[in-house]
């Protein structure tokens, strides 16, 4: 194996030296919320005279190189009062700002946010930032606000099914999204078979979704990165917030540990048993014990002027029990420790130790059968990231990381009656050594570049048995590998994005990225089940890979009140995985023989128009797309539509402030039905009419459309300590009978004829939520 450092050498040669000119000085510091002390991400600091500006990053940190002299600055952030400051800048200087929020949110009109990826001169593209505010204003099923349902309303992001939190980005599979909660991988983001996500909106600060042009610091999943940050606690004063909904109740407590220095945040959510399944008209589900809960906690500690420590964690669980016959429980846990240090006004460092895990146990017990299945997946990740802000036109980021991953596949155990043989499948273990370097560079005033590379050495650890299979999936040989390392998969992933400003309002952007994936999610069902199997790359399973190119046009209208973008993307997918029909994946030593490997391609056009301010806010997103796959052994080796292939996807999200207290929200979605396999013929065998299929995913589900509405009453009684609001919503307002699945059965009158029928999951569903703060 060649050492990773070799890949870095050519890149470091490319980088030119960054010298701050003698006439310049640097102003840097942190922009915070004056009432909570929380850093503000995306605050704009700009010189009043010549409009030289910078935007604060996730930690509220900004950095600005200016000619020496006296400058007048305007500091602004959406929903906050603008501040004007005059600073004499004779040498590099640190200055923090605290902005006061407006008491009344109607005034947010005054400032428009400069969001990453959506602004005209930023090289990032295919990127959407959502603040919790955006998410809280979108009406949803059962009134349970959910960021994973909100991102499905963005261009290029599709819902995994009616009411589902699963999502597909640009024609990819659900298991190809990297979901990070404070940098920790979330393996299974769903509660209750996907109807809710594990992200309690109370505990989330903001969300960044990368669909393309993915920056070099991210890697590991080929389709997208959903980077979710947990909220920091209030450093100024103690406060609480609670909500009662029809599905779950929530409580959040936050406050200072040491005034202005450190804070805590704790939030919890628990569902009420099975109330929603009764509404779902599924009679089989009536007598269940069924609940989920989520716990989030975060500590933010200032260890001096330049150093901060963040400790955060999540734990959640689902439990479903079916009258002693069947039970299943699953859950995620994550823990993140991040030490942020500002060496000087140019160099900052983040050192992180991260753990995440997911496990499930399922069991069946009756008089004759009694067995348990259990599986566990875990990783521990250590990483070090540096940012070097050389000057206003050059920023370098680099980092190194080591991630140890282990999978304990589903094993069968039985303690009573011995009705099954206990089986133990060997654990899979791998280590991912990675590093990246990237350079954000503004060579001219019109051109911005971000380019870099991410390198992985994925090490398949040995001390286990590997098998070889013939083309029918039968094991032909087995070999015990006693060495420490069974195989290396080394991959170099170039990333580049660029923006060319055409005029003050518009720009062209282009990007390319390659990403590989070494953790694969296997699924052959339409439902989202926690029992989906994960596997690591192995001698048989090669890393999945994507090459994606994107071209986009961005523009703003009406003094940045409106953002508009259109993007065209093309993706080439390699080493894709599918499962043989009838395959048993669990407790099967030879499960790798049940896998089929193929290629894919996905392409599309996305349009996005967003209104950021005013009484009416919201967006329209439209996607025209295609996603195809090709596998030996499926569809006679010919190209076929991926299940998530849809031609049209439209979402309209609108929010209208009727008055200071009343807000009306609505969402309308329309999409072409998913590609689906229906029979084209039938024949009789052994008394059964058997369906004859001619093509994989050759048919379409009916078109899907739905309107959701909600109204929020929020009397902004800012003077009182106690504050409450009501939201009343209705899902599927015109009661559209969208088909969840279509099945076939023998005709009731003539069994020689066959009829199709559809299953509808949700008709019109009302909801009510009461939220209060104290």
């Amino acid at each position, binding site marked *: 194996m060649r050492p990773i450092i070799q890949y870095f050498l050519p890149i470091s040669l490319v980088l030119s030296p960054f010298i701050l000119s003698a006439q310049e000085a640097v102003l840097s510091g942190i922009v915070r919320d004056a009432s909570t002390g929380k850093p503000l991400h995306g605050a704009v600091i700009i010189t009043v005279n010549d409009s030289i500006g910078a935007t604060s990053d996730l930690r509220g940190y900004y950095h600005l190189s200016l000619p020496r002299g006296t400058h007048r600055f305007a500091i602004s952030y959406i929903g906050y009062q603008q501040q004007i400051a005059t600073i004499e800048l004779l040498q590099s200087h640190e200055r923090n700002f605290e902005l006061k929020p407006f008491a009344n949110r109607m005034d947010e009109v005054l400032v428009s946010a400069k969001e990453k990826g959506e602004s005209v001169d930023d090289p990032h593209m295919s990127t959407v930032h959502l603040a919790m505010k955006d998410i809280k204003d979108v009406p949803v099923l059962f009134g349970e606000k959910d960021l994973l349902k909100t991102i499905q309303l963005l261009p290029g992001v599709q819902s995994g099914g009616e009411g589902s939190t699963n999502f597909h980005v640009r024609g990819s599979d659900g298991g190809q999204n990297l979901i990070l909660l404070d940098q920790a991988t979330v393996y299974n983001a769903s509660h209750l078979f996907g109807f809710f996500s594990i992200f309690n909106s109370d505990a989330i600060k903001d969300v960044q979704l990368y669909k393309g042009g993915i920056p070099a610091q991210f890697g590991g999943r080929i389709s997208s990165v959903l980077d979710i940050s947990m909220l920091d606690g209030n450093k100024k004063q103690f406060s609480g917030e609670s909500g009662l909904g029809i599905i779950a109740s929530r409580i959040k407590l936050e406050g200072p540990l040491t005034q202005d220095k450190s804070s805590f945040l704790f939030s919890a959510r628990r569902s009420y048993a099975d109330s929603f399944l009764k509404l779902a008209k599924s*009679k*089989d589900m009536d007598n269940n014990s069924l609940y989920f809960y989520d716990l989030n906690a975060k500590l933010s500690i200032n260890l001096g002027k330049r150093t901060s420590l963040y400790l955060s964690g999540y734990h959640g669980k689902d439990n479903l029990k079916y*009258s002693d*016959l069947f039970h299943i429980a699953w859950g995620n846990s994550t823990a993140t420790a991040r030490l942020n240090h500002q060496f000087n006004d140019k160099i900052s460092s983040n050192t992180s130790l991260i753990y995440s895990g997911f496990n499930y146990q399922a069991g069946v017990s*009756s008089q*004759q*059968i009694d*067995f348990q299945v259990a599986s566990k997946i875990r990783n521990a990740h250590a990483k070090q990231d540096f940012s070097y802000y050389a000057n206003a036109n050059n920023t370098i980021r680099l980092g190194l990381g080591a991630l140890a991953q282990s999978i304990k596949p589903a094993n069968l155990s039985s303690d009573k*009656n*011995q*009705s*099954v*043989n206990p*089986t133990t499948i060997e654990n899979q273990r791998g280590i991912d050594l990675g590093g990246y370097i990237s350079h954000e560079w503004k060579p001219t005033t019109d051109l911005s570049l971000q380019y870099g590379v991410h390198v992985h050495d994925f090490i398949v650890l040995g001390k286990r048995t590997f098998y070889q299979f013939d083309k029918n999936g039968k094991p032909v040989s087995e070999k015990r590998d006693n060495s420490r390392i069974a195989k290396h998969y080394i991959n170099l992933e170039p990333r580049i994005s660029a923006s060319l400003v055409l005029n003050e309002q518009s720009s062209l952007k282009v990007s390319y990225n390659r990403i590989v994936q070494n953790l694969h999610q296997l*699924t*052959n*069902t*339409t*439902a989202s089940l926690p029992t989906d199997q994960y596997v690591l790359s192995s001698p048989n399973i090669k890393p999945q890979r994507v090459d994606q190119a994107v071209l986009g046009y961005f523009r703003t209208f009406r003094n940045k009140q409106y953002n508009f973008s259109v993007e065209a993307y093309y993706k080439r997918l390699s080493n894709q995985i*599918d499962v043989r*029909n*009838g395959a*048993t994946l669990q*407790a*099967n030593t030879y499960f790798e023989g049940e896998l089929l490997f193929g290629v894919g391609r996905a392409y599309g056009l996305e349009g996005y128009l967003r209104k950021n301010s005013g009484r009416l806010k919201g967006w329209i997103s439209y996607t025209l797309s295609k996603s195809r796959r090709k596998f030996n052994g499926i569809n006679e080796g010919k190209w076929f539509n991926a*299940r998530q292939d849809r031609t049209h996807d439209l979402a309209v999200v609108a929010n209208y402030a009727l008055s200071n207290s009343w807000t009306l929200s609505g969402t309308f979605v329309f999409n072409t039905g998913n590609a689906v*396999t*229906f*029979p*084209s*013929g*039938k*024949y*009789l*065998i*052994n*008394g*059964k*009419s*058997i*369906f*004859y*299929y*001619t093509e*994989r*995913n*050759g*048919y379409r589900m009916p078109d899907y459309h739905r309107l959701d509405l909600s109204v929020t009453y929020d009397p902004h009684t800012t003077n009182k300590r106690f504050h409450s609001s009501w939201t009343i919503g209705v899902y599927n307002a015109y009661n559209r009978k969208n*088909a969840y699945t*279509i*099945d076939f*059965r*023998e005709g009731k009158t003539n069994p*020689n*004829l*066959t009829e*199709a*029928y*559809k*299953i509808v999951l949700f008709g019109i569903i009302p909801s009510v939520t009461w939220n209060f703060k104290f």
Partner: protein
Amino acid sequence: MDLDLNKAAARVVIDSQLSDASSVQRIRISHSVGFDDPINTSGIKGATVSVKDNENRLYSFQYEKDGYYIHRNFKPVAGRIYTLNVAVQKQQYSSSCQMPAYVAVDSTGISEKSLNGKTYFFATLTFKDPAKVANYYSYTLSINGGPFRFANAQSDQFNDGLKVTHYISDLETDLFSGDEVVVRRYCVDEKTYRYWNEYQNNNLSNAAPSNPKSNISNNALGYFSVASVKEYQLKIGQ
């Protein structure tokens, strides 16, 4: 609801489940029909159908009616390898199968399961699975003298060598108190099991249903199986 489905071109279907239940063996040759058409009941006439064993005994099947080709003096024996040869309009189809031995059933019964206030009945068959060999079972069921229809297919993947109970019910018709059922239990080879297992996996939750893989050459639909079989008569409890 109405769906506009394509009409697939007809393919030859060979339904050949032979067994040692009697010395009369039936093989049905037909063709597939479009999804919205009535099932083909007349079958294909004029085919040549024969089965040969590995000791060179040749059994020629004679056409009777509705696509059935019948041999009235052929009782297969466990352990022998049988080869099917079918010619339909100059097209040759063939397959082979080694007949597994029967695994005796120790006890039968009726099991009741109450789910959601409703009682579901199952015929149960309890037996000792032979250890250290792969065993495959398939079941058909007749209710109150009706036709035998496929019920379910099982393997011993998770319970090899153990005392095992199989629960049998019809896939489409619930059993009621007072029903008389006949369970036909086939000990089948792996390919037959795979065929029926793929069939039973083509259910609602399957993201991509596909044709069960046939063990017959030349793209025929259906399968060829020679199995050991026994029947069990049961009455659902009052």
